[in-house]
């Protein structure tokens, strides 16, 4: 409860700073670094009010619209996150068992992340979409694009985490004549979990970003990515709608992050850091 209060307080302070900045810059007439007006920095109240108004006549309210879009993008992100985490984890497990594969593949895995996702996305859409059943058409390909961002940190940290097992613990397992499989599941994987969860936290927010970006080349209109493109075009008339969309997108990312943190608390039983 105290935590929630703190979060609310920070949000209020940030909103206050936004309005204070607006007020100082408009009353002083400063134009550096940019001119402050209702287009560049709409009032918080304008943004909040926009949530409750329809974007067009006879349409649902903006919040209603955005929640539907967030649900659509959220589904892409969840599937992309799960796919990326699974692929990343398995890749880590395979690579930790073979120096040769590690040397051979790791550079390409790193290189894969230097290719901008906007360049990869159209190809994924062309390759993946025709293979998907109708229920997955469109958003399924976006999930694959999102997983492209999420698998990487999970692979790297799984690899690091699996190698983090105490050498004496490995020796202990040797005295039990433990199989590779037992060593993996009873020692290496549990030892890797703090590392894996650190990566999953990165991956959680990256999957939302990946899903939003993935929607752009796919030409999907039902998600937040479509909404951002759309509202971007009308920014000079209705800036508050893009800001509102950004707030919803950020909230979605935060929700994902919080889910991973909650899961970590349940799964990882570990000494508090300071207790050594």
């Amino acid at each position: 409860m105290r935590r929630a209060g703190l979060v609310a307080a920070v949000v209020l302070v940030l909103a206050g700073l936004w309005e204070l900045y607006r007020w100082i810059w408009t009353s002083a007439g400063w134009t550096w670094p940019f001119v402050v007006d209702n287009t560049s920095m709409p009032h918080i109240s304008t943004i909040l009010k926009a949530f409750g108004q329809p974007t067009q006549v006879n349409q649902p309210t903006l919040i209603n619209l955005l929640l539907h879009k967030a649900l659509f993008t959220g589904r892409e992100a969840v599937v992309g996150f799960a796919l990326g985490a699974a692929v990343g984890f398995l890749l880590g497990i395979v690579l930790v068992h073979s120096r040769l594969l590690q040397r051979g593949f790791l550079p390409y895995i790193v290189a894969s992340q230097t290719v901008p996702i906007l360049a990869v996305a159209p190809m994924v859409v062309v390759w993946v979409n025709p293979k998907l059943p109708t229920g997955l058409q469109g958003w399924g390909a976006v999930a694959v694009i999102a997983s492209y961002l999420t698998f990487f940190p999970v692979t790297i940290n799984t690899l690091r985490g699996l190698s983090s097992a105490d050498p004496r613990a490995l020796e202990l397992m040797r005295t039990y004549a433990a199989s590779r499989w037992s060593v993996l599941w009873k020692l290496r994987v549990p030892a890797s979990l703090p590392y894996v969860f650190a990566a999953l936290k990165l991956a959680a927010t990256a999957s939302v970003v990946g899903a939003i970006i993935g929607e752009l080349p796919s030409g999907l209109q039902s998600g937040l990515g479509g909404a951002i493109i759309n509202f971007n075009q009308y920014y000079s008339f209705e800036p508050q709608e893009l800001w509102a969309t950004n707030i919803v997108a950020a909230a979605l990312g935060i929700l994902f992050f919080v889910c991973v943190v909650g899961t970590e608390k349940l799964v990882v039983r570990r000494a508090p850091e300071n207790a050594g």
Partner: protein
Amino acid sequence: MSERPVVEIRGVTKTFARGNVTALENIELELHPGEFVSLIGPSGCGKSTLLRVVGDLTPPTSGTVTINGKPARQAREDGDYGIVFQDSVLFDWRTVAKNIALPLEMLGWDREKRKARTEEMLDLVELRNFADHHPWQLSGGMQQRVSIARALSFEPALLLMDEPFGALDEMTRERLNLELLSIWEKLGSTVVFVTHSISEAVFLSTRVVVMSPRPGRIAGMVPIDLPFPRTVETREDPRFFELVTQVRELLRKRGEHLLPEEAAELL
């Protein structure tokens, strides 16, 4: 002493390729059922290496180790020994009970059997109330007791202990010495105990094997004829001091070529 030895070490030599160090040279040693043998010597005398060779954790360069009539490797794979390291090496993500049950899981015991044995072991090391605690909630001494319970859970004939109390304070160490002896008397297992504390070696053992470094050799043996059960008073027994002196003399005689700090550590 006509029964088959639990451990037979025959002509074991161990050289480390790096630096061309001879850690062990031509070691001959036999351990009989129920013996409690301490290996003592300065750092670098190869006592821990010898223990690791016995446990098949490192191969000897030449010579053989036989445990219960089997080659060391076979013995390791059959689970013929339990081991306790200087650090407890407990798994943080497992409770105390689950840590003790780890070797039983590896041996494929079913849940009921595991539970029953784990409870016996918890009683043995007097940690019943801590079964559901995690290792990091326990003191160093308690952690080491869990480690001992884990090593003994599957009733191995042989217990290998590599300076198990080396990281503990003096008071805890003496209390655990007493506890270890009472467990040993109850279970009758054979123990190889590596230490660099003379009084600990004399207090615990039926025989002390003194080692000297560069190359690691057996410098002498001291049979410990102190009566059992050994108690707090044993440490004040004149015979205890005689034996401590005897071990110390052996270490000193063989330790003339030691570096000063190595000698200081021992004497």
